[in-house]
């Protein structure tokens, strides 16, 4: 009896897959494959148009200076997108990422400058390292607030982070006014506050410390997600919270720790942003939330949770930046970039829906 049952199951596997199914299986196993193809295709198109044809100033696209600039440009979205990825892996979403980042960096900046330049005069003039630590801690705490509200009151992440988006934006304006702190106002603290923007050359390419730190964040978090039990639990909670709970996983604790960790990464991103922009501004990148979600989704992570890889997010970030540079070098209007991103997001979600239906 069991013999026949085994053969039928074996036959199920034996039936040969069509080429389309093979593609589906490959994408299912390696969700970052499709963004990688998109990235390579974009690079090739821009490079060919630049070398062979006279399109705008695309001949500059493949030059080391442009490549260096593109890489340096990824740091803000790229780092924030790590936080967004771990949240989305739990089938959540974080709309407050930008607001927390700004709040954290304004804390750092206002603590580090002298009392005359600061909006929190009584606390100003701190050791810049202490200022950074407090800023990152505040961002971590802010992530913890998201996590607490989601876990304690069973509220949807979308609603909670929509609320905290407003709250942290308002707090930034109330506490720190709408005042940008310029790089030179940091005076002696500039070395520390701006360190993420410090650049160095390797051959013809220029890199920044911020870029290196971003890559470290990627490597560490990729290891944590794929190499530790916590990471497995993050995937399981996003995949099927009931199954996770019945398997003995404390779902609430995992969710809370994810938002807390996201807050920490957002704090680091705040520091990186000060270095990248050379100042601390309360109105930096208002659409950064959507860009991080875009990077994650284009990178092949499922909005339904439980599947995706950080390397996909990194590729997604590169795609956004390369489209930005490529299209503007080609002399096209900014609207084309927005159009292209829209098409990519919808395609990515469609591909995700398709590969989720995989059957072997």
């Amino acid at each position, binding site marked *: 009896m069991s013999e026949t049952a*085994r053969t039928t*199951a074996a036959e199920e596997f034996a039936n040969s897959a069509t080429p389309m199914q093979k593609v589906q299986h490959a994408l299912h196993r390696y969700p970052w494959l499709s963004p990688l193809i998109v990235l390579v295709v974009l690079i090739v198109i821009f490079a060919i148009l630049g070398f062979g044809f006279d399109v705008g100033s695309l001949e500059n696209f493949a030059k080391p200076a442009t490549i260096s600039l593109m890489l340096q440009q990824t740091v803000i979205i790229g780092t924030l997108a790590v936080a967004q990825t771990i949240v989305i892996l739990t089938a959540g979403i974080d709309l407050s990422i930008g607001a927390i980042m700004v709040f954290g960096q304004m804390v750092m900046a206002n603590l580090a400058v002298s009392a005359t330049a600061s909006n929190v005069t009584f606390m100003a003039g701190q050791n810049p390292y202490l200022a950074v630590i407090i800023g990152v801690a505040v961002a971590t705490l802010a992530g913890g607030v998201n996590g607490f509200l989601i876990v304690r009151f069973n509220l949807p992440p979308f609603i909670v982070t929509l609320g905290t988006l407003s709250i942290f934006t308002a707090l930034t304006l109330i506490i720190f006014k709408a005042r940008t702190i310029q790089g030179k106002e940091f005076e002696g603290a500039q070395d520390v506050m701006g360190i993420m923007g410090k650049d160095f050359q390797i051959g013809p390419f220029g890199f920044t410390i911020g870029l290196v730190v971003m890559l470290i964040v990627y490597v560490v978090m990729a290891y944590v997600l794929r190499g530790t*039990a916590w990471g*497995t639990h993050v*995937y399981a909670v996003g995949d*099927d919270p009931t199954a996770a709970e019945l*398997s003995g996983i404390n779902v609430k604790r995992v969710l809370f720790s994810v938002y807390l960790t996201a807050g920490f990464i957002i704090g680091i991103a705040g520091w990186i942003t000060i270095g990248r922009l050379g100042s601390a501004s309360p109105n930096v990148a208002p659409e950064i939330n959507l860009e991080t979600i875009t990077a994650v989704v284009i990178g092949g992570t499922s909005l339904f949770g439980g599947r995706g890889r950080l390397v996909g997010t990194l590729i997604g970030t590169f795609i956004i930046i390369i489209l930005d540079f490529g299209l503007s070098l080609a002399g096209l209007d900014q609207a084309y970039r927005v159009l292209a991103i829209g098409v990519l997001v919808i395609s990515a979600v469609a591909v995700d829906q398709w590969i989720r239906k995989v059957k072997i």
Partner: protein
Amino acid sequence: MTVVTSAQPIVQGKDLNKSFGRVIGLNNCQFELFPGEVLAVVGDNGAGKSTLIKCISGAHEVDSGKIFVNNQEVSFKSTHDARSHGVETVYQTLAVAPALDISENLYLGREVRKKGILGKVFRSLDKKHMREVSTKSLSDLGVLTVQSITQTVETLSGGQRQAVAVARAGTFGSQVVILDEPTAALGVNESARVLQLIKDLRDRGMSIILISHNMPQVFDVADRIHIQRLGRRAAVVTPQSHTMNDVVAIMTGAMTVPEEEQQLAPVR
């Protein structure tokens, strides 16, 4: 036909009561599972089968009554507690994470870390070890058609998923495996395979509680049949002592069995 024996139940419930507001789930319910047997639990909808099983597996706490595992009184606060006493449950929903692979699912919630500094400081998982044990466990259970232990569970057929869930329950030194309607969603061949798995587990010395509505299957694998009715145990019979029609009659209250004609002692 009661056999006189000194065997002690591995799981015992005494006078279990559990109500949900005004709805009574269990009403002074008795329960015994003996070592190495397959005990089927049958009953009409709402008879309290799932409630009984949930109290034993730690998913519910009883209002009153005592539960013993290996003659030791227990009070499980969670499924985790039950598991640490060797009581594993395969839920009807299977409780597997579809996007994780077979090995990850087998070890979900009890992952093994590497030895030494890699495991202690860097919390690194010992994936190699977990895959080896998973492979061995599945092949011990005769589930060899699974292509690769790193295949995600969503790519498996219903029967294979069930096999993974059963293998998980049978892998970690468990003594008691509870299965809630394991064949409800399966075809004929896959059901047969799962029934075989249940027999295999029993042959390896485990004690099994099987909830099922499928009488032919119950009569195929069960050593004894616990019939639940209106929140209490109506009778315990065997496939030899009673027919399927008898069991259905007892379930619906059309027939009663005097205690001396029941099989309250172990048959194995």
